[in-house]
């Protein structure tokens, strides 16, 4: 096993070139405080992207994870407020579980009825968002109501530095969680049969069945993990911004999918790596961040993200154009 596949090397190269270019245009890019804030912005998108990576390797696509993230986050925070509970571990477990169960629903529908993942996840996303707003509530949980433990957890830094003017900035500890999850998924994907079954399913679902993979289990693994990661990332997001908004994450699907495609995963399935995805997320976040630094209006960022998605899909589609069989 090569740790650093050629596709990943190309993405890393693109990243380096982009960093140099951005640094030339705006030397402030290289300031440590900017790099730290960049890394911080990677965490939530990155965790979601790892889930989407699994789905895309299996040949599917998931647009429901942002809804699941909202469900995990808002349900848990509202319960914590209602019960006046002030802890960290249990809420995160609950959010992860909520996401995972919702993912199980995706897996069940997709596998049982052999349906197109895009349509299924569009449907479940809408249902889940609607249920959250209809049954749980529509109001934001603001910083003054947010459980203190969550806020404290979200602002944990592993490294604090002082600027010349005496103010401090830090590197969020959440990056450790992100890296740990990424390494974990990488190991599962490359070293376990369930991980290889995801690639096999994405390469040729019928052949995967024929050689004896339990493809139902593969689907459950893929969509539950994607859901669980989304639920977890949702709550983490809320603890990092000290706000739980039931209408959050609208449109974030596009950013996450763009990042995964940018990271070399194939929309046709069977291809994709954790390293590539982590790099793809970094490129996307960095470019968005730089657009802000350059003072470009946020609405134009949507144009850039959409353009990057189309460009990345076009490039990978050219690469993956199947040889005639």
């Amino acid at each position, binding site marked *: 096993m090569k740790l650093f596949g050629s596709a990943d090397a190309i993405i890393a190269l693109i990243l380096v070139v982009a960093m140099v270019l951005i640094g030339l245009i705006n030397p402030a890019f290289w300031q440590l405080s900017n790099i730290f804030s960049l890394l911080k912005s990677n965490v939530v998108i990155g965790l979601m992207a790892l889930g989407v990576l699994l789905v895309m390797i299996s040949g599917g696509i998931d647009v429901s994870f942002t809804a699941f993230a909202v469900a995990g986050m808002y349900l848990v925070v509202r319960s914590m407020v209602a019960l006046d509970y002030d802890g960290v571990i249990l809420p995160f477990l609950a959010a992860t579980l909520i996401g995972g169960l919702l993912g199980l629903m995706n897996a069940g529908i997709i596998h049982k009825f052999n349906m197109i993942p895009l349509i299924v996840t569009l449907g479940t996303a809408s249902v889940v968002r609607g249920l959250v707003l209809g049954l749980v509530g529509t109001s934001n949980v603001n910083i003054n109501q947010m459980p203190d433990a969550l806020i404290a957890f979200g602002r944990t830094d592993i490294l604090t530095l002082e600027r010349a003017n005496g103010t401090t900035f830090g590197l969020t500890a959440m990056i450790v969680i992100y890296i740990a999850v990424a390494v974990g998924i990488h190991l599962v994907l490359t070293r376990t*049969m369930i*991980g*290889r079954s995801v690639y096999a399913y994405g*390469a040729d679902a019928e052949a995967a069945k*024929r*050689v004896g993979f339990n493809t139902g289990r593969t689907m459950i693994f893929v969509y539950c993990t994607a859901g669980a990661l989304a639920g977890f990332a949702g709550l983490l997001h809320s603890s990092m911004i000290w706000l739980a908004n039931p209408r959050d994450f609208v449109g974030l699907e596009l950013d996450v999918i763009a990042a995964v495609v940018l990271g070399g995963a194939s929309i046709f399935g069977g291809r994709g790596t954790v390293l590539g995805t982590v790099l793809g997320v970094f490129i996307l976040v960095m470019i968005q961040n730089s657009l802000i630094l350059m003072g470009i209006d946020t609405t134009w960022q949507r144009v850039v993200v959409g353009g990057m998605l189309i460009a990345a899909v076009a490039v990978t589609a050219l690469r993956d154009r199947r040889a005639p*069989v």
Partner: protein
Amino acid sequence: MASPPLIELRGISKRFGGVRALDDVSMSIDRAEIRCLAGENGSGKSTLIKIVSGVYQPDAGEILIDGEPTGRLDPATSIAHGVQVIYQDLSLFPTLSVVENLFLNTYLREKRGTVDWRRGRKMAREVLERLDVELDLDANVETLPAAGRQIVAIARAVLAEARLIIMDEPTTALTGREVERMFRIVRDLQAQGIAVLFVSHKMREMLEISEALTVFRNGKKVEEGPISEFDERKITRAMTGRDLNTGHFEAPAIAAGTAPRLRLKGVSVGRQVRDVSLDVMPGEVVGLSGLIGAGRTSLVKAIFGLRRDVTGTMEIDGQPLAPASVSEAIDAGVAYVPEDRLSEGLFLNRSIRDNAISAAMDRYAPRLWLDGKRARSETETMFNDMQISAPGTEVPVSTLSGGNQQRVVIGRWLMTDAKLLMLNGPTVGVDVGSKEQIHSIIHGLTRDKGLAVIMISDDIPELAANCNRVLTMADGRLTGELSGDALTEDALDAALAGATRKETA
């Protein structure tokens, strides 16, 4: 006492609905035997494969392995007994490496949770050594040529401790030299005690590799024996139940003064066709022979309105023809069946009816709505005329065999009231019996409807047996014409060879 055969089938029957796919079939395969199972599409070959591999359960009969009845055979037990099937599509994982394609099966069988890449690599290297082939272990399977993929599939079967490897149409995608290499591998397998069952309808290859032959027809075993008892003619007769027509086609006599269906005068198309003049009378089947690049396809495309760069005059039934589009050509009574019916000719997942009416939509949907009754009744007529074998006109075309698909393509054009039918490689990928039926249908149409046919083919016997005259083309020009008694396979061969010599001179 001789050891029992590796696998023995006794009185196997299988029905699907009203269709009897296999009818009381018995056969056996010995250890290290190379046997070929031949039969046309729909003769029960695939059903037999699926029964031996445990995908289907037979309605009657029993299967013995090493002389012991197996009882109910499911895919897992079949594999445990050493039966491996290599399907035509190979069932490989294109985006995964050769190594992984090889070891995944084994790890699955061992019910492993984790992947030991080092051991997998070792297994892969050993099995490829055993087959005496070299492959880049880290290459993705999709980057390999067809022959390489085939080898991966064989190696995977060997790794699964196969004792019998069933190969379904294994040589379809291979070139001559690759076929030779595969045969060498198959003989190596035999030397290692592995039996191979080829399932094929390619005669030359059967005769070359197999030791024994079993022929199926309509779900029954009709012939069986050592290969030395067979020749091509006997196999064909066994597969189709009749001798193939090697006669001649005579065009009906035409009253003097009849206008030709098609008249070309000094037609040139781009640089591919130069100054071609010809007449095709009603009822004629005119062959167009020549090497690839001789301009045959450009010429028929020009007549069908697919080329803009046409000079000279074209006439259909005396009316000038200068089609600016395909629909104008169709309106004038021209029909064209392209070489690649799958990508150019058919909507595979639509029904026979939808495909049938697609060439003449104006006729069935004159205004906004489809005249369903007319579409149905005319499709039924075509369905019967073309002798399509399918459960009905509503089944998707993708479920039909190659021969039946070709009938849909041809039949569809006849529903446009075509006066001139141009066929490009009409029977490529169609099996022997179906081929002949298609020819006889075409002949019937020329007789009954006064249709004129232009047939492009690289299959010299096909041209010699089915055309009343054959034109040879080289380098964009007509170079000769053979008809009547002068039209023989040898004469055509010679004419083509002559054209080649002239080109190279």
